């Protein structure tokens, strides 16, 4: 059974204050301009240029204590640059960045003990053993977590005596995460934390992230993995071309108009008579003729839009049964975060 990671401070100390408000109650659309004085991370109008090109172009972002905030975006969207500005590794060209109310560059000395960082490229010394690296990072803090316990949580024990150079990508990621949290930070920045990990490692990492959140830590993670954002994040900021193009909780992003999401989707043999399906649904539901629109955007993949409900579902499956058609997949309403993401950022490769 995994041992709990004690909150910062001595045992028995008052646990860190939790947000009074449900962190899921974010707003949809470009992030709210309202000041968030209590926010652990508050980025306003951030601009960062490389070679005259705006990599981050007026980005706003808020992350609260006791919440997981995902910065979701395609490669090159400006995610890493944004968190590097929050970590004090880069100086912004415009806008303001506040972490725990402080400036990450000017107040770096005060912030470093309170902020944990997991870099995308790892930043682990390659010649040292894994266990030694973690102990070394722990020695920078006055009251670090128990290295052995943390190592056990993340399964570092099996390779503690292996040099970093010989570790697999997933092992390195887990070691990097351990190094990021060993100092009991109040804010953790995780840049693509589960890149290159096998499913078991990912779940170990996700469990730890949730636990950090429950202890009151502000967790900011960048990812381009939909399921990671969907499973972990209390708030998602979708970033593209250096701006936040949508933010909110996952349920909010998934169904901005939840009451009106009336879509059934199913996969079956190609070339079904979509007009007949629509007519059957019209007859079975109170909307009357024309209430249902059935399309087949891809061969064998159908979208059924209308006043979806139990009756409509029964009518649809009845029609399929009458015509001896087996649906290989049938979903009601809910879009995935991937649908939202692709709708927002487009489908072209970049």
């Amino acid at each position, binding site marked *: 059974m995994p041992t709990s990671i004690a909150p910062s401070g001595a045992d028995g100390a008052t646990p860190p204050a939790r947000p009074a*408000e449900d962190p899921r109650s974010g707003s949809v659309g470009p992030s709210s301009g309202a000041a968030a004085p209590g926010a652990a991370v508050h980025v306003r109008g951030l601009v960062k240029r490389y070679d005259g090109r705006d990599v981050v172009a007026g980005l706003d972002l808020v992350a609260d204590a006791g919440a997981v905030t995902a910065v979701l975006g395609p490669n090159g969207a400006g995610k890493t640059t944004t968190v590097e500005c929050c970590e004090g*590794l880069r100086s912004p060209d415009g806008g303001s960045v506040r972490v725990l109310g402080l400036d990450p560059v000017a107040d770096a000395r005060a912030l*470093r003990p309170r902020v944990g960082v997991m870099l995308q490229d*790892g930043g682990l010394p390659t010649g040292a053993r894994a266990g030694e690296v973690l102990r070394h990072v722990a020695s*920078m803090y*006055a009251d670090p977590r128990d290295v052995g316990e943390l190592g056990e949580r993340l399964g570092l024990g099996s390779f503690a005596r292996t040099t970093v150079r010989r570790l697999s990508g997933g092992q390195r990621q887990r070691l990097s995460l351990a190094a990021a949290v060993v*100092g009991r930070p109040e804010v953790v920045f995780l840049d693509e934390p589960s890149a290159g990990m096998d499913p078991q490692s990912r779940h170990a990492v996700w469990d730890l992230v949730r636990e950090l959140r429950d202890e009151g830590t502000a967790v900011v993670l960048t990812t381009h993995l939909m399921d990671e954002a969907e499973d972990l994040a209390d708030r998602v900021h979708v970033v593209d071309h250096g701006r936040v193009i949508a933010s909110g909780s996952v349920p909010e992003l998934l169904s901005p108009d939840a009451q009106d999401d009336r879509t059934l989707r199913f996969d079956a043999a190609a070339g079904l008579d979509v007009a007949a399906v629509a007519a059957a649904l019209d007859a079975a539901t109170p909307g009357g003729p024309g209430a249902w629109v059935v399309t087949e955007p891809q061969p064998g993949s159908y979208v059924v839009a209308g006043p979806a409900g139990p009756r409509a579902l029964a009518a649809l499956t009845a029609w399929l049964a009458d015509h001896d058609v087996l649906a290989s997949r049938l979903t009601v309403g809910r879009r995935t975060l991937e649908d939202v993401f692709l709708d927002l950022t487009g489908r072209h490769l970049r």
Partner: protein
Amino acid sequence: MTTTTPRTPGPASGAAPAWRRVLAQTGFETRAVLRNGEQLLVTIVLPVMVLLGLTRTSVVEIDTGGWDRIDFVTPGVLALACVSTAFTSQAIATAFDRRNGVLRLLATTPLGRGGLLAGKLLGVLAVEVVQVVVVGAVALALGWQPAAGGILAAVGVGLLGTACFTALALLLAGTLRAEGVLALANLVLVLLVVGGGLLVPPGQLPGPLEHVATFLPSGALGEAMRGALLGTGVPALALVVLAAWTALLAWAAARFFRWQ
């Protein structure tokens, strides 16, 4: 609204004391060098082999000016040891740490950039202590009799040389690609050994090399070390040259070093 974790504010909350952070980094850097085969080859094996080669064989002709060969050669080998650690080993280690993001990661911990730099410098000095013990022991076994009165001066010269060549190491490591630094740092070491006045006094080098080496930090370090340990006194010119290089290289390293 939300509240952040209540903590006692203050610059050092949560961080270990500065001396402990620097000491930890020093130990980490030192172990990294002493554990790495190639680094050991350059920092320990090479100086010892040069010492043996110059004293037990006559492959290289050196005019010892009437001094015992071991007394004349050992100061130069100590100067070489200093350059191999402060320059070659440090340049390569820092260049790869920079490429692998180690410098950036450590800069986000309470260690910070200042602590990282301090740890590196002290790590160089710690490795040099090991070098002096090993090279010194071999030399003493071969009959070396250093001028007792010059040992303190030799330590001072070693510190100045270390500052100078560490600055050069950081200048290269902080501006060039890691692979480039690897090649260059080894090449420069070879050139300085052969024609830089480290082992062979600048005055014995052929043609214009004599004048060049006199004003190189390597020539100045070699001459200063020989002056101290042979008991003839540290030449003022060598000290001035070494100090000037140190100031110039430290400025350049601070000015041009890129952390990423």
